[in-house]
């Protein structure tokens, strides 16, 4: 597919992510940080965020399965996910993490489990869209072979 069509697809995808509230203006900060000295900056940060996010979500599920939940430990993991979400502009995930922390403070296992389900759904939705975004970027780059 021609570069122009792929670029149009990529722009539509990213615009949709903003429109649906998945991303906020912090993501534009990441885009501004990419330059000739760091040409893959956005993909590196997004990939790291996705890998870390998955690890944290798995750990949260494990912690909440324990008979005696260590809510401080759970809160610490949620704090990490909230922090990295805020930094990359993952607005929905960040906002759900805020709710999650409230349930940690209330020591509510049910509240935490319900919110974990929600954060998992939102995270994987975002991750899928990030992966589509990175794939489109690679396809666009392939249209311009390096010399």
């Amino acid at each position, binding site marked *: 597919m021609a570069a122009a069509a792929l670029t149009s697809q990529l722009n539509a995808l990213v615009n949709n992510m903003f429109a649906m509230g998945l991303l906020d203006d*912090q993501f534009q*900060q*990441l885009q*501004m*940080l990419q*330059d000739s*000295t*760091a040409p893959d*900056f956005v993909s*590196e*940060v997004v990939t*790291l*965020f996705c890998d*870390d996010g998955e690890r944290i979500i798995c750990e949260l599920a494990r912690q909440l399965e324990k008979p005696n939940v260590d809510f401080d430990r759970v809160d*610490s993991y949620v*704090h*990490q996910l*909230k*922090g*990295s979400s*805020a*930094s*990359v502009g993952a607005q929905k995930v*960040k906002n759900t993490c805020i709710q999650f922390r409230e349930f940690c403070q209330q020591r509510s296992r049910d509240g935490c489990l319900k919110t974990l389900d929600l954060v998992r759904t939102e995270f994987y939705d975002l991750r899928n869209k990030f992966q589509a975004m990175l794939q489109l970027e690679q396809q666009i780059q392939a249209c311009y072979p390096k010399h």
Partner: protein
Amino acid sequence: MAFQTQGSNLRALLVEDIKVNRMILSQMLRKFQVETTVVQNGKEAVELFLGGETFDIVLTDNLMPIMTGPEAISKIRAMGATDVMIVGVSVDANSMEEFKDAGADLCVPKLKLEILEHILQETRSKKNKSSA
């Protein structure tokens, strides 16, 4: 955005435990050609100061393992490092008071390039005044 750098490079200490955040903040500082040292918790930051290292600006998160940002700031200020610009960076609404009580000059919920540029300009002015 054109990234302004004026005069000699500033030296920054970045204190942040979350890898994604370290990557983003480091790149922001690199854009302004700030010479940056990165550590992962407050204890490591304090140890640098104890070892005689000096910085023009410290950017620190709040909640970190081993030692929090505010705790580290209190110790750094208690050492007599009163000139260094210290900026707390945290999305938590109740962090601002903790940072200010500990001796931070500023607290921001998120670092954006425009905000960082302004902070660095202020840091540079402060540095120029004290060396005049």
